[in-house]
């Protein structure tokens, strides 16, 4: 029941957000808002494995880009598919990759696991770069439809709404997990895997659930990207800045709860968008770096950690 109320409230917030964005009546609001929403999904997804289970995944770009490239493939082969269906497909692809990666690497702990995920991202990028069907290193052009298919407005508004819906789903899911049996199991794994096993927690199974969910959501977040950028090449799809931002946001907001990544993504995502417009995009990455260092030193439990106690 608590979950049902939360989802209703989240939907209400989402509706208000959309109404406010519409009332501003400037396409840029949707372009910028889309990026912030995308980071809400990415940060929340990353935190399911990184924050809840304590496994730091550096391979975010791979999951994200594979979702985006799934859309490129579907756009070329089945252009009639609606975007949500493509997102589902991207989610399945990245979820399966997450499952496979988990199976191969979850016996590693700490830094070794993180390095393995980074290596996986490099492998994935190399494969996409050498796959001509999706444009190889030259990249792929995708024509963005002019209008939203479900309401009157242009397509960027539609992308905004779709990402808003995915944010609601991701945040609600993360919150539901946090208070569930699964969430207790994840926390136990994060704190002490041996003690978790001794308490009856099937650690391998739970970690696989976490990698699949986390990877799947990242893939879904990446799926609309080709329509947003209209030109996708491996260098931009696999850009390091996705990984840096996605890890920085939960760390700044706080990794222990569903709320931390949300706060971090809204705060940092918005700041970055403003900085990109007003000054430069190089500055926005620098901003992340400075904030990250500040938080790691001054407030290791993030913003949420401040308010508890």
């Amino acid at each position, binding site marked *: 029941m608590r979950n049902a109320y939360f989802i209703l409230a989240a939907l209400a917030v989402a509706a208000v957000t959309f109404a406010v964005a519409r009332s501003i009546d400037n396409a840029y609001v949707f372009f910028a808002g889309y990026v912030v929403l995308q980071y809400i999904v990415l940060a929340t997804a990353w935190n399911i494995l990184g924050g809840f289970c304590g496994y730091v995944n550096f391979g975010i770009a791979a999951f994200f880009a594979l979702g985006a490239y799934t859309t490129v493939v579907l756009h070329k082969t089945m252009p009639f598919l609606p975007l949500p269906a493509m997102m589902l497909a991207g989610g399945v692809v990245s979820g399966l990759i997450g499952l496979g990666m988990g199976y191969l690497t979850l016996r590693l702990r700490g830094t070794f696991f993180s390095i393995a995920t980074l290596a996986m991202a490099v492998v994935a990028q190399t494969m996409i770069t050498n796959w001509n069907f999706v444009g190889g290193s030259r990249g792929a052009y995708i024509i963005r439809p002019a209008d939203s298919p479900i309401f009157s407005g242009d397509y960027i508004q539609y992308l905004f709404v779709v990402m808003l819906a995915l944010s609601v789903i991701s945040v609600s899911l993360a919150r539901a997990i946090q208070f569930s*049996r699964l969430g*207790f*199991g994840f*926390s*136990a794994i*994060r*704190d*002490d895997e*041996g*003690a*978790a*096993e*001794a*308490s*009856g*927690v*099937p*650690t*391998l199974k739970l970690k696989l659930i976490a990698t699949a969910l986390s990877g799947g959501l990242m893939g879904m977040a990446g799926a609309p990207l080709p329509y947003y950028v209209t030109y996708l090449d491996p260098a931009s799809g696999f850009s390091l800045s996705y990984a840096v931002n996605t890890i920085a946001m939960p760390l700044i907001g706080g990794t*222990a709860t569903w709320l931390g990544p949300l706060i971090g993504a809204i705060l940092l995502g918005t700041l970055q968008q403003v900085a990109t417009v007003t000054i430069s995009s190089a500055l926005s990455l620098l901003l992340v770096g400075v904030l990250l260092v500040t938080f790691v030193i001054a407030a290791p439990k993030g913003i949420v950690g401040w308010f508890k106690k």
Partner: protein
Amino acid sequence: MSNPLLTVAGLGKRFGGFTALTDVNLIVAEGERLGLIGPNGSGKSTLVNCLCGTLRNDMGKVTFDGHALNGMSAHRRTRLGMARSFQLPRPFTTLTLAENIRVPILYAANVKTSGQAIDPRQRCEALLDMVGLLPKADLKPADLTQIEMRKLELARAMASDPRLLIADEAMAGLSHQEVDEILELLIKLNGQGVTIIMIEHIMRAVLAFSQRLVVLVAGRKIADGVPQDIIRQPDVVAAYLGS
């Protein structure tokens, strides 16, 4: 006594070139109170780790309640009804005491096929009360003393609702009175049908508790029998006092 609950046959364990356990044979009957003693480094904790699946034994077989355990993961052994406390307490540090106890309730006690699901909250309170930690239910393990940490360790082991409890030095560092409290607790649990293996250096406690005593020295079992006889055996005395 009745049927064997745990059977260990020819168990061996190596760490690289070092042999920690050699050909350990042991039978524990249902309902028994067994004391396991031995000098530091004799392999007691290693034996516990092999029994509970934290480590894999290189040789031999372990059978629990008719199930062959070789290759079985630790969490499945816990669900079958084996629980252990860690010699160095390993609490879940980001969870409150109540949540620490909740993990095995959710993942072991409530997963067992027999019996109906218990209410986690009530069970959790009962367990914390049992070890006197109920007033601290909402604190984190970092706020506890070492002694309270051991009690938490014991409560968490009990929370999985085990048939066999292995307490690895649950009493080290406790005061005379606290040792008595834990002893009383363990004997009470045993009265409720839980088979208990107690690993302990405090002789007073071992003798008060054990119906049978097993002695490990340098990874080998050198004695197994009635406590009063065992402690007079020359090789046991030699192992403890140095020959």
